[in-house]
Structures are given as C-alpha cells and as structure tokens.
C-alpha cells in the first residue's frame, strides 16, 4: 500500500506513539474521540507559558502584546485553514459543543418562534441534537430528523419534502462520528437556502479529516473542536457569516465582550470579541494555530487520501473476520477513517478491554449517538478510527486482537 503521506515521518512527530500499553506497542485507534498531538503543538504551548504569557487585549506591556499577537495570529491561521473571508468570523469557544450551543442560544432565541422547525439528521452526535431540543422546548419550535439509511446515507428525497418555509435552520455533521459517512453538505446547503433556512455544519469530524472550505460549502455556521485535529483540549471554533454574527446577541456577558459598560447597561464589542467573554484559552488557541499549520503543511487533500486508503484496507480486512458486522458506507470514497462494527455476541466493552490488553485503543459504546444506535437496533458498538499517523500494520494488529477476543468468547 502506498501512502500519500510519509507516515513514518509523521509518527516521529507524535511522542505518545512511542509508549507501550500493557507492555505492547500502543496502537491508537481512537482519534475520532480525540487525536494525539505532535511535539510542535505541545512545544508551542510550553514555549508560550515559558516566554510570553500574560493576559490578552488588556495590557500595554510587552508580554501582553506578545500574547495578544500570538492569540490573534492563531485566529488568522485558523480562518485561512477553513477559507473564512475574514478572521473576524472566527470565534474561539471551548469545543464544537459550545459552538453549537452558542448558535442555538443566541441566533436561535432571537430568531425562532413557536411552530418553526429545526431540521437535523438521524445520525447527529448528541452535541448537535440536545442544544436544539433545549431551544425548541424553550421557544415552542419543532426538531425534525432527516432519515439516514443503514450505511448512513442521507435520504435526499426526504430532505426535499422536509425542507419547507417553516424550516429555519438545518444542522448536519459533515462526517458522522459513528458511521463515518461523508455527507453531501454542499447540496444540503443549497437546498436549505432555497427555502430560506440557514445551515450549521458540525465539523467536529469533518474539519480534522477532510478539506473544508466554508465559502465553497456556502454554509452559515461551522463548529469544530481543536482536540480532534492535533490541537489541545479546551479550544474550539465557531465560524459564522459576518452579517449573521453581527446581528446576533452575545452569548456570555463579561469582560472583553464589551465596548463600554455603565451601571445601566453595556455596548457590545465588535466581532469576534463580542462572543469571547472573559479571559480566553490563550495557550490552547496558540496550540490550535500550530496544529492547523501542521495539517496545512501535510495538505488536507493528502490527509484525506491517506485516510481513504487506510479505511479501504480496514474495511477489506474487517470483512474477512467471521461474525463481524460493519456499519456505515461500503464505499471508501464516501467514508472517513472510521470503522464501526459488532463482533459475534461479544459486548463492545469486553472487546475494548481485551484489545486494551493487546495495547490497542478503540472506543466502545454509543459514541454519543444513542438515537442512531437505537435506530440501527444496537445497544452499543465498537469503533476503530484512524488519522494521519495510522498504519496498515495497525489494522493488522486490530484484526489479530479481534481473533483473540473470538477465541476467549468461543463457546
């Protein structure tokens, strides 16, 4: 198998990949939950704390100016990474979840009325369901779900009948964290705009793994998390179209998000700071800026090509295992680096525990998509997910581990 990435070189950038688990070399197949971090990201945060830390936007002293320049520099790089028209459209949050909540609670409260509809898909992560349910309950709106089939493909004919003038916003993940399905977000955006609805893309999986260009997609909001794309935890992004963000009320009140405050009231700061109340995650945003540079240097098309190869190989190898049932798309062109499956009557937690004993980290459970699991008739599933540092040999180790589990559970 030839790879478009120099995976050996990439692996050398990730210190954690040298570690052993239960005295076996670590095989980390849980990047969809959170990716590992290259040394450049860890070092940039360390260096910042050792040399330039001070609060941002406040001081006139050297350290504060350096910190502010690093913080705002990260914002610009992240804006470029998703091809935002302006870095003012890039709002730092804690994670994708907070980004979606921000939209639901500011734009949503200001714009949704009783009887309005919020359209999601059946394969959304809880993060792109629960904030909308909370909003719907508060304003009397209705949440509807576009069906997906067993491979996770969106029922685009249902989309047409479900999109009406009542639809105010469509929320859809660019890639499903359970099925790995790559969603036709450009098409969904076009059709949603056709009825005057806005579109929020949950890019928590898509942005780390697929080239993402907000202007090409044409969407209105994009939410993603730093920790799934080589960046640290505690930092995420909401990108939004400037006109929309300008018109939205703020999310949290406090320092940094105001222009002036009197005892009677306050005037909001301009974008993006209007949405960034309080001292932000400075080191983490700097880390994410470096992570984005790291991914850009590899090239997102090459990242995607590598993951397409590895998922194609994994799907082939997994299909050989008797008693294994894969869920999600068969077609690697329409699937990200996520392989979710069940094996015989072995409970996913047992499987994950046995694999852990072999040094292999996979995820077991409902992957924060309980409604989708229920729809598929599953209580839980096992998920192996891949990233830029994943090797075909690691797929082979996974397969060996699965056979070991089968032998332990053989009647």
């Amino acid at each position, binding site marked *: 198998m030839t790879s478009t990435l120099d995976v050996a070189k990439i692996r050398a950038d990730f210190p954690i990949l040298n570690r052993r688990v239960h005295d076996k070399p670590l095989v980390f197949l849980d990047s969809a939950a959170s990716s590992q971090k290259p040394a450049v990201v860890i070092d940039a945060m360390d260096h910042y704390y050792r040399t330039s830390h001070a609060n941002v936007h406040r001081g006139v002293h050297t350290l504060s100016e350096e910190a502010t320049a690093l913080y705002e520099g990260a914002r610009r790089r992240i804006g470029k990474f998703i091809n935002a028209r302006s870095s003012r459209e890039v709002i730092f949050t804690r994670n994708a979840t907070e980004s979606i909540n921000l939209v639901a609670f500011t734009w949503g409260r200001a714009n949704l009325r009783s009887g309005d509809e919020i359209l999601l898909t059946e394969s959304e992560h809880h993060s792109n369901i629960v904030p909308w349910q909370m909003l719907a309950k508060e304003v009397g709106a209705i949440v509807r779900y576009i069906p997906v089939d067993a491979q996770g493909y969106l029922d685009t004919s249902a989309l047409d009948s479900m999109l009406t003038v009542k639809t105010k916003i469509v929320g859809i993940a660019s890639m499903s964290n359970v099925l790995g399905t790559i969603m036709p977000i450009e098409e969904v955006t076009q059709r949603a705009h056709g009825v005057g609805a806005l579109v929020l893309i949950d890019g928590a999986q898509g942005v780390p793994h697929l080239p993402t260009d907000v202007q090409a997609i044409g969407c209105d909001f994009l939410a993603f998390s730093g920790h799934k794309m080589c960046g640290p935890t505690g930092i995420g992004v909401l990108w939004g179209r400037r006109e929309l963000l300008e018109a939205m009320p703020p999310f949290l009140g406090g320092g940094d998000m105001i222009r002036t405050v009197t005892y009677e009231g306050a005037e909001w700061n301009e974008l993006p700071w209007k949405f960034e109340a309080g001292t932000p995650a400075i080191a983490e945003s700097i880390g994410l800026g470096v992570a984005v540079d790291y991914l850009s240097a590899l090239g997102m098309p090459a990242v995607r090509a590598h993951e397409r190869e590895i998922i194609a190989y994994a799907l082939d190898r997994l299909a050989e295992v008797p008693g294994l049932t894969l869920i999600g798309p068969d077609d690697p062109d329409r699937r990200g680096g996520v392989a979710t499956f069940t094996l015989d009557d072995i409970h*996913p937690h047992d499987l994950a525990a046995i694999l852990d004993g072999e040094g292999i980290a996979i995820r077991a*459970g*409902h992957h924060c998509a309980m409604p989708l699991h229920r729809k598929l008739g599953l209580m*839980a599933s096992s998920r192996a997910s891949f990233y830029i540092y994943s090797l075909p040999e690691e797929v082979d180790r996974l397969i060996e581990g699965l056979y070991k589990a089968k032998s332990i*559970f053989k009647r």
Partner: protein
Amino acid sequence: MEDLYRDQIIDHYQNPRNHGTLEHPDISYEEDNPVCGDHIRIDLKVDNGIVTDARFAGHGCSISQASASMLTEDIIGKSLEVVRQIGKEHVLEMLGIPLGPVRMKCALLALKVLKAGAYGLQGWPGDEEEE
C-alpha cells in the same frame, strides 16, 4: 489479560443462571450504569425473611451480566439479613479478577441493584453502595 476473562465469567455470561423475571416478585428493582448503558433488573421472592427465588434480566458486558448471575445464585436460600451484609469485596471475590475503575462499576451494578431493592423494602436509601 486472560485473567480478565476467566472461563467462569464467560460461562456465567453465556449461560446465565436465574435469568429472567419473576411473576410476582416481593422485591423488584432495576438500574442502569449510565457510563456504559449496562442495565440490570433483579427480582426476589422472599419468604419469612429468606430469599427463596431470584432472577435477573438486563444487558451489558460480560462482567456486569456474570456478576448478576453469580450474585443471584449466591443469595438464593440466604436471609435478607445476610444479603444485606454482602459487600463489594464478596462480589469481587466471586468474579476473581482484577478490575480498573470503569469496569468496577460494571462488576458492582448487580450488587447496587440488589441492595437498593433489599434496603428499599426496609425504607433505606438505595444508593448507599460504593463507587
């Protein structure tokens, strides 16, 4: 690793003892482990303070289901007084394997359900059991 999956656990998982529900239980209680979604229900028939029959139902990993199976087997014929004394160590001893913090919850779910049910009968709070 084989330690984690002693034959006895696999046996109880694949051939659960006292599996099902009782028609007219004197005590019935059920609970989830929200972390993994394991679910266990335990029904007891109690005669003169003695557990005369026990059933469990539910779903989850081998550890949670095997511990429920072993526990029901263990308590049939014992008095509620004795059942109430059963502690975490007893269950872990029956399982006989080392467990990390996450799987500990799987192992102790059945005991948690049993205690909540048994104490409930006496009006005790149900969630005294350890983490």
